[in-house]
């Protein structure tokens, strides 16, 4: 039964909603105003915001100094390819979590047995490495064997787990502040292959991942993967399992079940996941600023170019920011309905 709402309540709610909306929108409004002012007028905002002259010279200067199209292209490549790659991994993962939680046979050893096996293997590998003096360059095969001893029990443990209860754990990887992982990831990117070289296998140390698409696309995909899987899982949960069972009884294989039954039914969910992740990747600034320089540098880098230690830069910075957010805002505007429907899908039963 619908509740009664008075006109006064409606008016209050509307005013409140508009006020909140305007507060949220205010920084963008400020940016848009500053972008069309001269540098010294931009600093005096909001004073005389209407009476001071309007100008488009900032956009001209930004165009002249930076290769805007290159940055747009880089951002698009990183955002779109990483999202598509993410979907390829996330659809089977979410399917497994939503429809297979109880089916998988699991080795039913108790936790402490696993713990002893895993720690024991690690200790054994470390003891062997210690006894030969850690350096593996003369014994590449032994090095490989040690890696297997070290990691096989963990892999086996992961393999025997059910996936249904891993959702929260997966999301928890997003809870760590990214700065905490910066130095290790930076080193992996900057000196990849050094381990292999030290162990006498292959020297990839000239092959640097910093400032390459080969580095940025997988990284961005991994960053957003937990969210992609989580979103897809909630959509898949809405689809009755019976339909998939019926398809199986009609003889559909795994691939057919995924591609011909599940994917078409979950298309709105997949589409909104795709959109949201393109937006998230588009706006990512921490990793892109730290791990790119020029060739794979996206729009976050473009904006950073216009902040200055000396002199005035707000107007040019605002112009650059507007140029950076314009394409994604237009995309968001056109796909608004799809996005909202996708985000609220499954929220109301």
């Amino acid at each position, binding site marked *: 039964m619908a509740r009664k709402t008075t006109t006064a309540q409606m008016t209050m709610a509307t005013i409140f909603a508009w006020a909140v909306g305007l507060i949220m929108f205010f920084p963008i409004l400020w940016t848009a105003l500053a972008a069309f002012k001269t540098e010294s007028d931009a*600093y005096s905002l909001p004073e005389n915001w209407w009476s001071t002259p309007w100008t488009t010279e900032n956009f001209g200067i930004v165009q002249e100094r930076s290769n805007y199209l290159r940055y747009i292209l880089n951002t698009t490549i990183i955002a779109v390819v990483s999202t598509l790659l993410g979907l390829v991994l996330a659809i089977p993962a979410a399917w497994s979590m939503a429809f297979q939680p109880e089916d998988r046979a699991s080795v039913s050893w108790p936790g402490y047995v696993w713990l002893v096996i895993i720690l024991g293997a690690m200790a054994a590998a470390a003891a062997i490495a210690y006894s030969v003096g850690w350096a593996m360059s003369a014994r590449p095969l032994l090095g490989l064997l040690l890696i297997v001893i070290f990691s096989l029990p963990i892999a086996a443990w992961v393999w025997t787990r059910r996936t249904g209860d891993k959702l929260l754990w997966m999301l928890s990887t997003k809870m760590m502040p990214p700065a905490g992982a910066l130095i290790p990831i930076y080193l992996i990117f900057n000196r990849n292959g050094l381990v292999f070289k030290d162990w006498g296998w292959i020297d990839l140390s000239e092959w640097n991942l910093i400032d390459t698409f080969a580095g940025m696309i997988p990284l961005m995909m991994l960053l957003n993967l937990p969210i992609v899987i989580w979103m897809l899982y909630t959509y898949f949960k809405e689809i009755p399992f019976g339909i998939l069972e019926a398809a199986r009884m009609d003889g559909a294989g795994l691939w057919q079940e995924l591609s011909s039954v599940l994917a078409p039914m979950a298309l709105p969910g997949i589409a909104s996941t795709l959109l949201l992740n393109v937006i998230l990747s588009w706006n990512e600034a921490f990793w892109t600023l730290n791990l790119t320089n020029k060739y794979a540098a996206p729009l976050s880098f473009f904006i950073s170019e216009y902040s200055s*230690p000396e*002199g005035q830069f707000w107007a040019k910075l605002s112009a650059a920011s507007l140029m950076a957010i314009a394409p994604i805002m237009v995309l968001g505007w056109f796909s608004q309905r799809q996005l909202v429907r996708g985000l609220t899908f499954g929220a109301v039963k």
Partner: protein
Amino acid sequence: MTTLLKSLLGACALSTLAIAAQAETTLTIATVNNGDMIRMQKLTDDFTKANPDIKLNWVTLEENDLRQKVTKDISTKGGQYDVLTIGMYETPIWGKKGWLVPLKGVDDAADLLPAMAGGLSYEGKLYASPFYGESSFVMFRKDLMAKAGLTMPAEPTWDFVMNAAKKMTDRAAGVNGICLRGKAGWGENMAFIGTMANSYGARWFDEKWNPQFDTPEWKAALTDYLAIMKDAGPQGASGNGFSENLALFQSGKCGMWADATAAGSFVVDPKASKVAADVGFAVAPDKGLGKHANWLWAWALAIPAGSKKATEAEKFISWATSKHYLELVASKEGWANVPPGTRKSLYANPEYQKVAFANMTLASINAADPNHPTVKPVPYTGVQFVAIPEFQGIGTKVGELFSAALAGQMSADDALKQAQDYTKAEMTKAGYIK
């Protein structure tokens, strides 16, 4: 058959191209976004024409982003950059650690201003070549000074400046007597307050690395700074840095502004400044103890030890910091736009002496001595900073405390006490205090 032949020929042509491309060296240059650096990027044709086998790849970044990225790269010997833009603070520290290549081929090194060459060297070796240098001075409004019935001396004292600031303040008309930095940061408010404290006889550390915030000199300096900002400073000053104060001064809202000499060209530019015709310059104030409150800074070009193209990089640095480059800028953009503060010959040039703030800049730079920055002896070098790796963190924390005191969130005594405790703890942890 013909198709096969064609594709083979095509492949040969491509590989020849690839070999030709490999003969070229690309230098990756990391730099900050300020006027002089952007101008250099536009003028590099002059260099690449003379060195057709060297290509330049510019990475322009915000100062803090640049510092972080460059530090990560250089400390891991990543070798991403061939030329770095670094300041006077990092150069001696990184030189000492062996992270930079000593420069030998700088164009006429004897012509560099001694204060600049000294601040960019470690144990007598030059590790970065100055691209432009600056000190700080006082910019003031001649019309407002006359209205207050005062005349600015060439070398004002703090007492004069504080008295003048009060008299020039007319809040009804939107005029603040003085605008000073308040935004927290070792290179922001601490650059100013640190030099003010130097002139008051205060110092960061005594000869045994004990912090000195509990001394009467620091208390006098901070109390005066807070008092003058309360009586004659702009509203919300605790958020103001260089750019904010520049905007206030240009729009006629400040009677005086003590800041970088690099601001000179901005405040006299009639296109951007409403008060361009009324600006005068004076040396940074003193307290009668023989030290003026002016700092010394340079943006300089250096080669990281990880670069594999050090020879080409040195060629570029030599060009960018040469006398020839100064003449090139003068011929294209006029003498007022030449990067200042690096060479003696520039200040001997009669054309350059016509620039309004040229002599005042040289006098300010010469008045700053990074090896003897304070009245009492100190164990460190650096005027507005202490050239030790721990200073970035300590300076920023102390800057936050002083900024909070300016915003009225704590008293001067509390800020000094917390600064003293924090610095002492950090210096003990780092092993300076036994």
